């Protein structure tokens, strides 16, 4: 659609800017402030320059939690996106079951995040949890509070449980917007089911899938509450993702300087990835 140039449109945007800026800019400035200073409490600050940034970037602790984060995000994207597409493809297109499916599938999305963590904790506990019992029952020694691998698997299973439905909903919406004529034409052209997926369904879902990947990337990169409640970042540091580490440093040890520097580095990484996505998406749309 062609848009007209109208500088007065700013008036319509002002309320949003004021509210968001209040929440974003002031705290961001506080963080920037901390990130370049040293404090020993009682509001005495010393200028430290980029010392904290160097320290964080060189610390093996940051490297480790960053790698864990990348690995976690990569894994859940690799599971949730294909699984979400597959479920959406096999969902009924119309009829009473559509509502039933949508309501049941959306349920995990609306459960408070700490409840999700607590729920999975109870579900996976080796002594009283259904999942823990079942896995131990088939002869596998499983205890996510003590085994790093089990902790990882449980965290990933929880995230898949929690968020795959978002991908399903988005992909399903994309599928619903494909007119019947495309499927009919494909039949007449003699296309195989794979060709229908590859040449019709996937291209038509591209837009919603980009959004799904973007949302899942952002949210999984910020993940805090669920794994914190489930595993507390442990055993050891094995499931300490960026946000958990950050809160540990800032509130646990009250090292505000390094925490702030880490916050900024962390924020910039998310920003950078999203900016790349956003630009690619906009370029694609312009085409």
């Amino acid at each position, binding site marked *: 659609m062609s848009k007209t140039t109208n500088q007065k449109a700013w008036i319509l945007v002002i309320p949003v800017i004021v509210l968001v800026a209040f929440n974003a800019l002031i705290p961001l400035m506080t963080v920037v402030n901390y990130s370049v200073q040293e404090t020993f409490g009682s509001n005495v600050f010393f200028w430290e320059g980029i010392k904290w940034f160097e320290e964080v970037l060189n610390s093996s602790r940051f490297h480790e939690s960053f790698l864990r984060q990348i690995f976690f995000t990569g894994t859940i994207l690799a599971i949730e996106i294909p699984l979400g597409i597959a479920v959406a493809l096999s969902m009924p297109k119309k009829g009473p079951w559509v509502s039933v499916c949508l309501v049941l599938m959306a*349920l995990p999305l609306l459960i408070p995040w700490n409840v999700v963590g607590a729920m999975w904790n109870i579900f996976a506990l080796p002594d009283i949890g259904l999942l823990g019992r079942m896995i131990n029952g088939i002869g596998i020694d499983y205890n996510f509070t003590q085994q790093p691998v089990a902790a990882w698997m449980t965290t990933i299973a929880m995230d898949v449980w929690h968020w795959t439905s978002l991908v399903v909903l*988005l992909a399903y*919406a994309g599928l619903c917007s494909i007119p019947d004529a495309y499927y009919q034409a494909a039949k007449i052209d003699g296309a195989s089911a794979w060709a229908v997926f590859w040449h019709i369904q996937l291209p038509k879902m591209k837009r*919603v899938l980009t959004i799904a990947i973007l949302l899942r990337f952002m949210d999984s990169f910020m993940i805090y509450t669920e794994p914190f409640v489930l595993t507390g970042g442990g055993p050891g540091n094995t499931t300490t993702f960026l946000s*958990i580490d950050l809160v540990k440093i800032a509130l646990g040890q009250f090292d505000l300087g390094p925490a702030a520097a880490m916050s900024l580095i962390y924020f910039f990484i998310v920003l950078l990835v999203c900016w790349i996505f956003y630009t690619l998406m906009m370029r694609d749309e312009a085409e």
Partner: protein
Amino acid sequence: MNFKKWLLPTVYILFLMLPIYWLLNMSFKTTNEILGGFSLYPENFTLENYIVIFTDPTWYNGYINSLIYVAMNTVISVSVALPAAYAFSRYRFLGDKHLFFWLLTNRMAPPAVFALPFFQLYSAVELFDTHLAVALAHCLFNIPLAVWILEGFMSGVPKELDETAFLDGYSFPRFFIRIFIPTIAAGIGVAMFFAFMYSWVELLLAKTLTSVAAKPIAATMTRTASTAGYQLGLLAAAGSLTIIPGAFVIYFVRNYIAKGFAMGRV
């Protein structure tokens, strides 16, 4: 073939329901039964845990607090996002693209980064431990999302609608409220759904910004683990109750969501 088609969604939904079932199962057990052994269903069925929650103000106030700030946030987010989304979808203006991206970046800001500065900011403006504080803080990520969703819906409405209305002598506010808002009702439904969802499920900021008066249910729950010992049954009951508002909301907007998803951006 038909069987194969049904298999995946059925298995998937079963997978989704199992942990929820387990939570419900636990909520109807006594603490002794939970710790005493493993059973697939409550053998000594009890409503004790629910009775505690409904009679103890520190518990049920948590729900009321949560619902208050979630409702406030949903209303604030969507009502300020509406005009902004209209501006983005209809007009080109200085810095519009950058502004749009800047808004989206706030959706990307990890709440953990902002937890402490938020505490200081809202203490400084003397809003700490009020519903408004949480409602405003959640605007950080809900407004950008609402603008994004609504902009998508509005771009799908032909511009001729606006032009015809203005030719017919409608003033801008009258046109916006009488004609435009009803046209994109499905979009508003979807935006409200997402605002509700993210505000309802968020814990970190809500917990940071409250202590007593506006304490959300999610934060009340973390208390059971520490002060009152490990009361799993109570925790499970409280958790089960947090599912209900979400289930209600999904049930009422389910048609909007399917329709809204199909026509809009999200």
